[in-house]
């Protein structure tokens, strides 16, 4: 298939349609409004439904309703908007409703700004809403990967009956790159949800979908069912990329846009004869604890780089378990670090420890 030049946000939209998504509900917020705009134009061409909602609160509940009927459904938003969706996401996780969310993360906290950031890592991976739940969180680093992970997000949502999240950022959303789109999914081949979906109780008992039981012993059973599912996901769905780690003395840990920048840093360091590699979680939940732990056996120093105050850093340290030092470099507030500044910081850190 030929490659086409496309913007990150629009690439995610087209990938969703090719994955069989025909329902999109969304509310404008910078820097992701091109995605709902794209869907508003594109979905009617494939007999799909686009609806601009009155708020992110309404959006997530429309997703809840559409997902109840067993259809593939999606929304996209940016940080403050995703915060507003948290109650509904918690409901959907408990009610075991598949849906795909896209958070094009911007600078925060509060109103923040509209520049790229990674400050929503904790919200995305540690829960975000109330109660015990997890989202499968995929963090693309290129536009092509955003396409591939969007398709995967729908498949995993259906497979595990759970909401999934594409954790992108303003840089990836606004960037144009050549991508190869997958073929259109034949809608008749999508997973069959007739055993639980609300499709009308014709010739069968009613299907009830709730995130509720007043009996604590029954609710505990529901909780345990979720835990079992999350353990299953942790076993099967951990994804990560290692770049030049085979002989590395120093390994940079980074996700999303920063990981992409860190690749340039690896190349710069290698030219100078420094053995630097990159470890990039693709699923930030489930986090690749084991592969990172394994890497710690042969690496002298880890260098975590993020566009936040050190959120993934906690998971990196958890994986490494104090065996090896973990240094940290960050920019915040929507400032994107350059390869040069990361490299300089890395050299300084390395020199200090030599």
């Amino acid at each position, binding site marked *: 298939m030929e490659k086409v030049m496309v913007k990150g946000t629009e690439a995610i939209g087209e990938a969703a349609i090719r994955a069989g998504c025909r*329902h999109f*509900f969304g509310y404008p917020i910078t820097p992701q409004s091109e995605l709902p705009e794209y869907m508003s134009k594109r979905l009617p061409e494939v007999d799909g*439904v686009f*609806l601009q*909602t*009155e*708020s992110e*609160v*309404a*959006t997530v*509940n*429309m*997703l*809840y*309703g*559409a*997902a*109840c*009927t067993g*259809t593939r*459904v999606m929304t996209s938003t940016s940080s403050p908007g995703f915060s507003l969706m948290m*109650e*509904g996401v918690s*409901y959907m996780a408990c*009610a075991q409703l598949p849906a795909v969310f896209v958070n094009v993360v911007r600078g925060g906290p509060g109103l923040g700004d509209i520049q790229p950031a990674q400050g929503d890592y904790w919200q995305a991976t540690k829960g975000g809403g109330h109660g015990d739940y997890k989202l499968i969180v995929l963090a693309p680093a290129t536009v092509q990967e955003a396409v591939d992970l969007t398709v995967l997000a729908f498949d995993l949502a259906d497979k595990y009956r759970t909401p999934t999240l594409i954790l992108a950022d303003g840089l990836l959303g606004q960037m144009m790159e050549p991508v190869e789109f997958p073929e259109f999914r034949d809608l008749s081949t999508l997973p069959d949800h007739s055993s639980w979906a*609300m*499709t*009308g*109780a*014709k*010739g069968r008992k*009613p*299907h*009830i*979908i*709730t*995130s*509720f039981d007043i009996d604590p012993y029954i609710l505990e059973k529901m909780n345990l069912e979720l835990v079992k599912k999350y353990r299953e996901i942790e076993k099967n769905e951990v994804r990560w990329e290692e770049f030049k780690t085979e002989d590395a003395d120093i390994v940079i840990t980074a996700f999303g846009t920063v990981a992409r920048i860190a690749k340039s840093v690896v190349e710069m360091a290698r030219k100078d004869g420094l053995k630097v590699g990159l470890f990039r979680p693709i699923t930030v939940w489930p986090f690749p604890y084991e592969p990172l732990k394994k890497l710690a056996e042969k690496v002298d120093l880890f260098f975590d780089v993020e566009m936040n105050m050190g959120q993934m850093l906690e998971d990196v340290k958890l994986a490494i378990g104090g065996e090896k030092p973990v240094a940290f470099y960050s920019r915040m507030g929507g400032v994107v670090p350059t390869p040069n500044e990361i490299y300089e910081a890395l050299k300084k850190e390395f020199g200090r420890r030599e």
Partner: protein
Amino acid sequence: MKKLLYKMPESLSGKEFTYCPGCHHGIVHRLIAEVIDELGIREKTLVVAPIGCSVFAYQFFNMDGTIAAHGRAPAVATGMKRARPDLYVFTYQGDGDLAAIGTAEIMHAANRGEKVTTIFINNAIYGMTGGQMAPTTLLGMKTTTTPYGRDAQKDGYPMHMCEFLKEAKGVAYLARTKVTTPQDVEKTKKAIKKAFLAQVKGIGFGLVEVLSTCPTNWGMDPISAMKWLEENMIPEYPLGVFIDKVGDEK
């Protein structure tokens, strides 16, 4: 010859209602079930229960159902209807759910003319949480959060949802009723039927507000509660049909 005059509607599950004695939820549930039976749409109808005393509504109706987050039933119903326009969707909501936390969702669903139906129970109080002030609480009315009576200067005025909604162009049927007498029960059933027909015929959004009693939280016996409703709620919330684009059945 024996003739069966009264039976459990097929659209009710048969599960015993959990409502307090004298509460009007049960009457309205039954009327909705009768209407769905008469329209023959039970197997194609989805119920969206609210947060409040009627959180268990999904158990009482014999059809596919869910519970929406507080106030969000119209958004959930919108998602369902947009995904499955061939099905019928109704929300059942109380005054806290619809007229306080869910005001944005009901206004926009109505204004978009979503082809869904909403049955709105207005009993002027929060029932399930134990009798706090609702947006529809009357002035001077004592609740657990207005122990000195609702004061307009401090607590604002009773919320008139039908009067707000009647300006929304997407609304196809809009009425306010009560169920304190057999005649009122009949009128309410007709209104509920029209609110469903607005959806079945694809005309637009339908809503019926039913003024109801809450003897437990009003601190009255059921008979006094009905009398109180007649004397105090009707002057504040006049009954009537505000919008009817459905027309009369031939």
